[in-house]
């Protein structure tokens, strides 16, 4: 019976055979766990010590949003600072690098190639790279450079604001090439006529950027920002390696805070509630942004 309905829908038996492994696995590994996540969020499940299982309704959502002990609003502000700053810097730098690498000059292929490196290197290694550069003491790269220009070594990761700065720098190093690659690909297929016309009219490079390049790239820029936004909100590895969310809770973004709630404090239900709030927010933002892009074109 089900098979017949499926056959109607997909018109052929082969299609079902082709699709079913992927759909079955994704159903087991994403749809079912997601529903289970909702179930966990409306019960009280704590690992490490047993509590009687109880249905608590929306209590976990409400206490996440109202009680400071679950660190939700602290995480919200950390997330906004981290994502906002890194996204803005990556966008500007990425565009600049793309315009630069769009020129043809000897050796440009090598520069285009090394831009791939931060994208394939594991975030764990990238975290280590920056941790090693920002260790305390006068022997680490950054502090040594500071002493060269006559400044005192700084304990970067002991300060809330500086830790956040290090994380943003790491994220910029990791993801600016991604932006640059996308923009470079788009620049290479742009029609040359508007640029030639502007050159003949004697427009300055800045004017060309402002009035031709950016408007032509608008859609690509929007897509790149959406993709980066979704990934940025999920950042975990570099935070785990570099600051572990500290000092205190200064660098715990929402995703990391939920991890801590679940696997350090063992409060799976609170963590599920928080991650559901994040997931729904991300989905709403993504849909709105995609709508906005579609309407613009």
């Amino acid at each position: 019976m089900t098979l017949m309905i499926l056959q109607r829908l997909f018109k052929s038996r082969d299609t079902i055979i082709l699709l079913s492994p992927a759909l079955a696995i994704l159903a087991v590994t994403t749809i079912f766990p997601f529903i289970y996540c909702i179930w966990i969020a409306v019960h009280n499940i704590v690992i490490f010590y047993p509590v009687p299982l109880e249905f608590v309704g929306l209590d976990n959502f409400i206490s996440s949003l109202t009680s400071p002990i679950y660190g939700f609003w602290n995480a919200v502000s950390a997330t906004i600072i981290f994502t906002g700053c890194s996204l803005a810097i990556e966008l500007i730098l990425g565009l600049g690098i793309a315009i630069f690498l769009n020129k043809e000059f000897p050796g440009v292929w090598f520069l285009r190639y090394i831009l791939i490196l931060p994208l394939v290197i594991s975030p764990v290694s990238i975290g280590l790279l920056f941790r090693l550069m920002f260790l305390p003491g006068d022997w680490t790269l950054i502090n040594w450079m500071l002493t060269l220009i006559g400044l005192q070594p700084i304990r970067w990761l002991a300060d809330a604001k500086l830790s956040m700065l290090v994380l943003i720098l790491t994220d910029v190093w990791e993801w600016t090439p991604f932006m640059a690659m996308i923009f470079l690909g788009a620049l290479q297929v742009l029609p040359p006529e508007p640029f030639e016309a502007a050159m003949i009219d004697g427009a300055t490079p800045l004017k060309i950027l402002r009035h031709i390049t950016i408007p032509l790239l608008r859609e690509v820029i929007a897509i790149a920002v959406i993709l980066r936004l979704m990934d940025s909100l999920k950042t975990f590895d570099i935070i785990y390696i570099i600051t572990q969310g500290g000092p205190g809770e200064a660098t715990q973004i929402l995703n990391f805070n939920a991890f801590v709630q679940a696997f350090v404090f063992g409060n799976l239900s609170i963590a599920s509630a928080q991650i559901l709030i994040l997931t729904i927010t991300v989905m709403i933002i993504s849909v709105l942004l995609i709508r906005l892009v579609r309407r613009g074109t």
Partner: protein
Amino acid sequence: MNKRYERIVITISSIILLVWIFLPITWMLLISFESQSQIFLKPSLEKFFPITLDNYAYLFRTGAGFVRCIFNSLIIAGSTSVLATIIGSMAAYAIQRVPMRRSIRDNLFFWIISQRIMPFLAILIPFYVLYQQTGLYDTIPGMILAYMTFTIPFTVFSMVGYFNEIPIEIDEAALIDGCSRIMILFKVLLPICKAGLAVTFLLNFVLSWNELLMALILTGENARTIAVAAALFLPSAGRSALWGPAAAIGIFFMLPAIALSFILRRSLVRGLTMGMVRG
């Protein structure tokens, strides 16, 4: 005059870009070759020479732990990418060129790639509970199943792009000759886009090799991957200042990806940017 000015700008920008990318990597590479007494010296000749391989030896000497993690990572990343590439290509083929209702096609495609939006933790917390109950916790099959959640969507997205470039007439000719859809996929289409298949496979491998969060939560001692080993080594590295071995892990861990990226240079750009950039 203008030409010369432009050349100077290009040279300076190139140098800045090179330093920006290579400075962190070089610093870690240098530290990984330093002995424990050299690490705390300020940068100078004595700090960097003579070089030593002690840090790398240390990793392999600390017992079977590290070697085992490498094997686990190889097995998990290898099997995940084989399975995901096959299963994902099948789905991609069905979605891209087998006739079906437009609304179904669009929704299926959107649903599969929208997996990417969801934070891993939303499925990981249930995974943790379920794996504890079913005995999949800390096993290699469990990790492979978990990694399917992001490798299959990636494969579908990537392969749809590659299939798109093959003229549909090829399918039609094969259909007239009496091939089934499944035979067309495996005997005709996949051999045609071997290159795309290879890039997809290798990127799946790199994605699984690099992954930390899932492995951290779903493995203990047995199925621990090298990503987790590297991450867990850090706290002890911090206490006893074992920065040399820590740097060695970091270098060792990034080598496969760097090697692959050099071999695949051009086609990789397209894969990494989710098919938005044609290499």
